[in-house]
């Protein structure tokens, strides 16, 4: 029977595949990248990595001791941003990279905070240096490194975390308060750990600083209706809506905000829908005036350092679209930072590279990059000469305009016409 033949061929193929040994070249330095490639916070990192690896390899590679070796990327899709997928999938992907693909370093993910936290013991077990570059915003990551330094010293993070974002947002809020006299704040967050934690923190800080918090709504992932929240904001004369959502349904929220003409400024953080260049077209311009925090400069056009626009244009040329998500510039820099550390350490040995990484001090795409020696988190600052600079952008007339920090801003925050008296 046909099906019988098909089944046996299939089984034969499986058996063959099991016994073909994986082909490995001894020369390249293997970078394992566990990423959720079907999602923005996965493919932005993948593209950043590919760009950096291509540039470095074209320039000759990395000097390890006396020989020059190229980088090789191995990307595995962890699917960890999908709701129905267990974190054990992501962990299995990390293990596959380490044990099967013989990755020397792990870059990028896992992307979801809980998966990243769960991967820490694995990384310490196999003694592999890892640099997180996208997704995972929870402050718990660097707290755990600081708490159990000897166990988790192999874990680094090169992009800003939730607490930095809250600080940056508040600087902006204060400015808006001074300029326009805003005082009413409404917070809408997605029901995931970093968003909820950040929302609670924002509420606490806001009330301390004298803001009137008109509401704090937590939406479960997959909720499609925000009407009640928006109406509540409108009725309570809210002037700023702080949004912490990376789920796709946030575009429903933003479109409805525009249609209802709610007189409040949508100030988002990790608002994935609004970070992409395609956002304008996707919302037919209704996304104008949306602010979002893209965590690191370089993801939106600015002149933080001479390298920023070089990276920006190189990315746009290579991929045909401008840098998209919060992981683009940080992933690009992670490869360069790793190259720098390997060259200073003179070897691939994990402990030596960890020591070298802790002494990192280079001018990157988004400022001066140094790691905090205790928590292995990149040191933030509002001045690119001092530390890693974040970026808050606002959509104005179809373009993403960086409005914060002032040291690199190319524009000012504008209010929608129905808010101007």
């Amino acid at each position: 029977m046909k099906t019988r033949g098909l089944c046996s061929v299939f089984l034969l193929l499986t058996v063959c595949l099991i016994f073909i040994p994986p082909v490995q070249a001894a020369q390249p330095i293997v970078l394992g990248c566990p990423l959720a490639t079907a999602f923005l916070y996965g493919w932005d990192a993948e593209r950043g990595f590919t760009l950096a690896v291509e540039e470095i390899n074209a320039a000759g590679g990395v000097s390890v001791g006396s020989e020059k070796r190229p980088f090789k990327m191995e990307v595995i899709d962890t699917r960890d941003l999908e709701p129905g997928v267990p974190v054990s999938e992501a962990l299995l992907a990390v293990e596959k990279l380490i044990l099967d693909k013989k990755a020397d370093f792990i870059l990028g993910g896992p992307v979801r905070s809980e998966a990243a936290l769960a991967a820490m013991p694995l990384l310490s077990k196999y003694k592999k240096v890892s640099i997180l570059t996208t997704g995972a915003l929870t402050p718990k990551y660097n707290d755990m490194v600081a708490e159990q330094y000897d166990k988790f010293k192999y874990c680094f993070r090169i992009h800003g975390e939730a607490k930095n974002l809250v600080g940056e947002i508040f600087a902006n809020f204060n400015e808006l308060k001074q300029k326009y006299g805003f005082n009413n704040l409404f917070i809408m967050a997605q029901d995931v750990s970093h968003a909820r934690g950040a929302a609670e923190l924002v509420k606490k800080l806001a009330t301390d600083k004298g803001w009137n918090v008109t509401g704090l709504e937590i939406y479960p992932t997959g909720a499609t209706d925000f009407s009640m929240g928006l109406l509540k904001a409108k009725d309570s004369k809210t002037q700023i809506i702080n949004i912490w959502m990376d789920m796709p349904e946030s575009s429903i929220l933003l479109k409805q905000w525009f249609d209802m003409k709610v007189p409040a400024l949508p100030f988002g953080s990790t608002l994935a829908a609004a970070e992409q260049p395609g956002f304008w077209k996707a919302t037919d311009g209704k996304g104008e005036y949306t602010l979002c925090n893209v965590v690191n400069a370089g993801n939106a056009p600015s002149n933080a350092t001479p390298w920023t626009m070089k990276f920006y244009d190189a990315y746009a040329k290579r991929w045909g679209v401008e840098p998209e998500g919060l992981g683009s510039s940080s992933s690009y820099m992670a490869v360069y930072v790793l190259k720098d550390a390997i060259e200073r350490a003179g070897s691939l040995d994990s402990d030596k590279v960890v020591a070298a990484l802790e002494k990192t001090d280079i001018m990157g795409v988004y400022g001066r990059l140094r790691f905090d020696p205790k928590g292995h988190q990149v040191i933030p600052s509002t001045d690119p000469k001092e530390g890693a600079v974040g970026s808050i952008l606002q959509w104005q007339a179809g373009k993403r305009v960086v409005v914060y920090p002032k040291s690199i801003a190319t524009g000012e925050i504008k209010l929608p016409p129905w808010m101007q008296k």
Partner: protein
Amino acid sequence: MSTEGRQQRRERIDRGIKVRTAGIYALMSWREMAYLLAPRLLLIVGLLVLPLVMPGMYWKRVISIVCIYALLALSFDFLAHFVGLVSLGGAFFVGVGGYLSAVLNTKLGLPPLICVPSAALTGGVICTLLLLPCLPLRGVYFAIVTLMYPLFLARVIEALDILGGTDGIMGIDSFPNPRLEQYFVIAAVLVFLFGLRRLVNTDLGLVLRAVKDNDQAVKASAMNITRYKALAVFIASSIGCLAGACLVHIYMWAGISTFALDFSVLPIAATVIGGSGTLVGPVIGCLILVPVSELLRDFGTLRIVFYSLILLAFIVFRSEGLMIYGQRKYHQMERWKVI
């Protein structure tokens, strides 16, 4: 069908050796005993030797995952084909067992070797109690309730932010010794596989199978059906919770995603492919599906597409499964018989 003027038909009968091994006659000679023992020994020895044979640590880990899914598939097959209750909620058992073991380990500080069995038994009790209201219902409703429970519990944990909320519970101890870790799950699979096979041939098993076939008849014999169904659910959910507890200790972490739908779907797929009704089939199904799924990882998202197409093909075209087909070939032969 006729050739040369003779009539022929195709006949399928038991092999000679199968007939000779019925009952006590199996002890007649070494050949008969080998015929009976060979498949079973192959399975046992194969499973025990597999971790030693597999190249690299990664594949050893895959074997542990295979065993966990095998336990889930066993519980599904037992419930579906020997008691008549289709449970689409493998994730429910894994989640409950996993969280219980995590809490026992982190809050009470008990070592994993005590946590896992206690979590299995306690989890079994909790799951049975939660499913008790739906046991008297007929039809597809038990399936839907078991499907909804893990989603519901996941949302509740998320909304109330208990048990670690969306962050999960970290810092769970792993097994004291990697060999133990590896062989504990394999031993669990073998023990429960053969245990369940023995169970369905006892009186209790007979009653359970009767409940599946015709519950009115059982009721008419003055037996409380709900009690027997509850007992079956307890057994199956204990096995599922054991799987969840082991998973949590292997990865040293428990979170909302222990309720993931993947844990419900893969055991069913394994049962369909491996052969439902024989308890061995699901184990074989897992042995095939999980490594193939890992091998196809290089294809990215396409892997899921392949996997669902394979599942579709099996269920529509060859829904009996591999094991039943294999058993038929082993025990019976086909030949042309002249009429």
